[in-house]
């Protein structure tokens, strides 16, 4: 059913500075069939295939008579399809149909609860040009953001673009994350991501266990509906005074919580102060968050470092975060990724100690001993687990050979 009196809709972006995106305009007509006016930067190379895609989508959505304008600035097919579907859905908001491009085979991988999450790269959900090569910079996770980086009027655009990206963009093994909107709007976002192999859902401005539970319930419903077998984890983001105080409750609200993150921009505003480089204003919140996450057995993840030009500042900030107990940091620019990885890398002393613990543990296991000892000291299971993580980080940072046991 069509929105009353609405005969024209637009979607996408136009202008001299637009790259890898397109602008679509659909004007409904009473007759005359489909008239497509295509102006494309890649007309010579892909003009025909763009036309084919648009005509195929017209047929799929049963659009018979319309004047369509497509101004293309080198958009990839998943972008053109998302923009076109948006223009259709802005005309016909009640349509339940979804135009799904084939799911990329290489995107069929899954994740684990304790996966390394040193870096998570934020990508604005309505900016496709940033999606395409994001995985090449090797972040541990990529966040397609539906929340703060998307203008309120473009939320519907980002939902379709993120859905298409989850299906069509190769993230080269990075954990596939989506930051949904603050609840209750965030619940509506789930149907665009749950069926498309999202690994981790980031819950912004989380202030209660109920919010996590509400998401878990909706995710379970959608998983059942779409027959999704793989695990989907949650990362609540604490961004308020109340959230900090309730952080343990939130961290332990669901078995699918894999990490708890802090967002200091909103938090400092909430407690009536401003972020400083020293970070004294947030020390309570960050320590509380680390404690809450550790108590719940999940990973504590630090906020982003917002000065993308200051790599030394970033490095110092990661060293400080590591000293507080954090395991990861948000990134807003790909160049921050290697700096964060290096700064989270274990020191040579940490690696040596971890090697001894792991070897002692394996030796004890081999002998069937229930107790692990290193010299005269007893080693607890959490210590072994931490040592294993140190070894993993050392290997990932090329500080230790994979076959270190044989060396």
């Amino acid at each position, binding site marked *: 059913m069509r929105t009353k009196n609405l005969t024209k809709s637009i979607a996408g972006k136009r202008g001299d500075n637009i790259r890898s995106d397109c602008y679509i305009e659909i004007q409904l007509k009473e007759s005359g069939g489909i008239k497509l006016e295509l102006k494309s930067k890649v007309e*010579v*190379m*892909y003009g025909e295939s763009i036309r084919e895609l648009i005509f195929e989508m017209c047929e799929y959505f049963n659009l018979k008579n319309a004047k369509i304008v497509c101004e293309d600035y080198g958009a*990839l097919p998943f972008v053109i399809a998302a923009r076109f579907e948006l223009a259709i859905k802005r005309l016909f908001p009640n349509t339940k149909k979804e135009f799904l491009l084939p799911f990329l085979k290489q995107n069929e991988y899954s994740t684990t609860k304790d996966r390394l999450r040193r870096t998570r790269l934020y990508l604005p959900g309505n900016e496709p040009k940033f999606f395409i090569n994001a995985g090449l910079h090797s972040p541990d996770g990529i966040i397609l953001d539906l929340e703060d980086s998307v203008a309120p009027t473009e939320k519907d655009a980002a939902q379709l673009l993120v859905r298409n990206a989850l299906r069509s963009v190769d993230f080269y093994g990075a954990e596939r994350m989506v930051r949904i909107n603050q609840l209750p709007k965030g619940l509506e976002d789930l149907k665009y991501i749950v069926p498309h192999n999202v690994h981790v859902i980031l819950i912004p401005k989380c202030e209660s266990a109920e919010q996590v539970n509400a998401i878990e319930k909706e995710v379970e419903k959608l998983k059942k509906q779409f027959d999704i077998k793989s695990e989907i984890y949650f990362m609540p983001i604490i961004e308020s005074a109340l959230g900090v105080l309730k952080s343990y409750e939130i961290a332990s609200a669901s078995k699918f919580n894999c990490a708890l993150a802090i967002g200091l921009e909103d938090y400092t505003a909430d407690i009536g102060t401003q972020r400083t480089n020293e970070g004294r204003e947030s020390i309570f919140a960050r320590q509380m968050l680390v404690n809450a996450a550790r108590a719940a057995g999940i990973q504590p993840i630090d906020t982003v470092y917002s000065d993308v030009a200051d790599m030394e500042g970033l490095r110092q900030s990661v060293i400080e975060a590591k000293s507080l107990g954090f395991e990861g940091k948000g990134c807003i620019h790909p160049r921050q990724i290697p700096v964060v990885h290096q700064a989270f890398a274990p020191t040579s002393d940490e690696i040596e100690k971890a090697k001894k613990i792991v070897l002692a543990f394996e030796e004890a296991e081999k002998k069937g001993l229930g107790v692990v000892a290193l010299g005269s000291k007893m080693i607890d299971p959490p210590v072994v687990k931490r040592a294993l993580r140190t070894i993993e980080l050392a290997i990932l940072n090329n500080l230790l050979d994979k076959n270190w046991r044989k060396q």
Partner: protein
Amino acid sequence: MKLVKNAAGRLVPIEVNGQEQIPFRGINKHKPTGYKSKPPIRSCVDYPWDGNKLVKDLKTALKKAGIKDGMTISTHHHFRNGDYVTNMLFDIIHEMGIKNIRWFPSASFPVHQNLIKYLEDGTIHHIEGSMNGPLGKFTSEGKMKGIGVLRSHGGRYQAVQDGEVHIDIAVIAAPTADEFGNATGDRGPAACGPLGFALVDSEYADKVIVVTDNLVPFPCYPWMIQGNNVDYVVKIDSIGDPSKIVSGTTEITKSPDRLLIAEYIAQFLEDAGIMKDGFSFQAGAGGTSLAFIPFLKERMKAKNVKARFVRGGSTKYLVELLNEGFTDYILDGQTFDLEGVKSLRENPNHINTSPFTSYNFHGKGNFASIVDAAILGATEVDVNFNANVVTHSDGYLLHGIGGWQNCLYSKCTILAIPSFRDRIPVIVDEVTTLCGPGELIDVIVTERGIAINPKRKDLLKAVKNSSLPIRDLKEIKKEVDSICGGKPAKPKLNKEKVVAIVKWVDGTVLDSVFQVYTD
């Protein structure tokens, strides 16, 4: 027009603008015999005894030089997009009613789109030089009367020296000159760097006019253009805007993907063992090839390695290397920013060079082959490592060759390219226009991996244990095609109409540029 298949398998004409052409015969296969071209003998008795060659304006100089229909007039691109003199020159030529000029610039820029009206009205017959931006579009659409000829900087020197192009009148814009005609580019209010691209013109042209806005008392020293080769000197108010010698392409890229490419190149030079004490490299203009310099500097610092020389296109990044002791010399062919100009003027180890020393294929050797690694760009490469720098994948001429072809003779030629731009694949099955044969291109570095020419077994072996993503070029292409939504269609070209030819460094014809259908 009769087209034949050359040694690279490309269809090329055997005659262009009434001149017979030699099809490309293969790398290093064409070695002409005979003698160099020679300028007419002049006698100093015909020149002012007081050494004052100043004439009142450019029109007078052109008249005295005997300008007439059908002549070849040369200009130079030291000011890049800030050039005033070329547009002024053709306004005067047009006003004089002269027709059918062969314009022989060392390069053209968007600022020269004013000349389109003179190409339309017959003042200019055709261009031999680069056809950038609007001039490229005009040419590609088949609107130029004659056929364009694209040459590298070294190829331009070779063409004049070999007698392939005879320059009737050379017009040299000089930031500083004296009344005798001695001229330099490294000082004056419009200082632009070396004037090396004008050197061959000053040596071989029938008549040479120096145009300056900074006339100094004799002697203008150090000079790059010698007054003994100059016929007339003209003083005007302003020859150009030196701030526009700096273009977007001479700033380091901010794109994280291009920075990743730059980082890969620096690591490659180290891992392949090229970065060692006394080595040398060339960095051209272009965001990515410039960005690799700071990355390389970090590695040189860590390994305590110093270069013997670096080749420019100088920029502030090369100047930093020189000032901080990471290289003994900069050998500078053209200057891309004002810090480069200052360094050239003030630092004796920042050396003026010309296409004769650096690139000339018909010289007794040249600097290009001494360079350990050259980092260059390209608009397209194909799976056989052939590369294109003059046309885009839509068939339109958009760039000149610059020194690119000449640099391919370095010991390790590295092309730094994104695997695709927006939705335009850069790695293709076959390049639209062949500018550099694959056998001279050793490494292609993209954000999706590094492809080494299978011929370079030594390089493949050297980086065997590197952590770099070394990949097969065809594999990268396959991935890019899949991202872009299939193989790109080729441009619709009129294979009956050659609009320009691309010369190889030895003067033979490497490829043809065909008219683009505009319907």
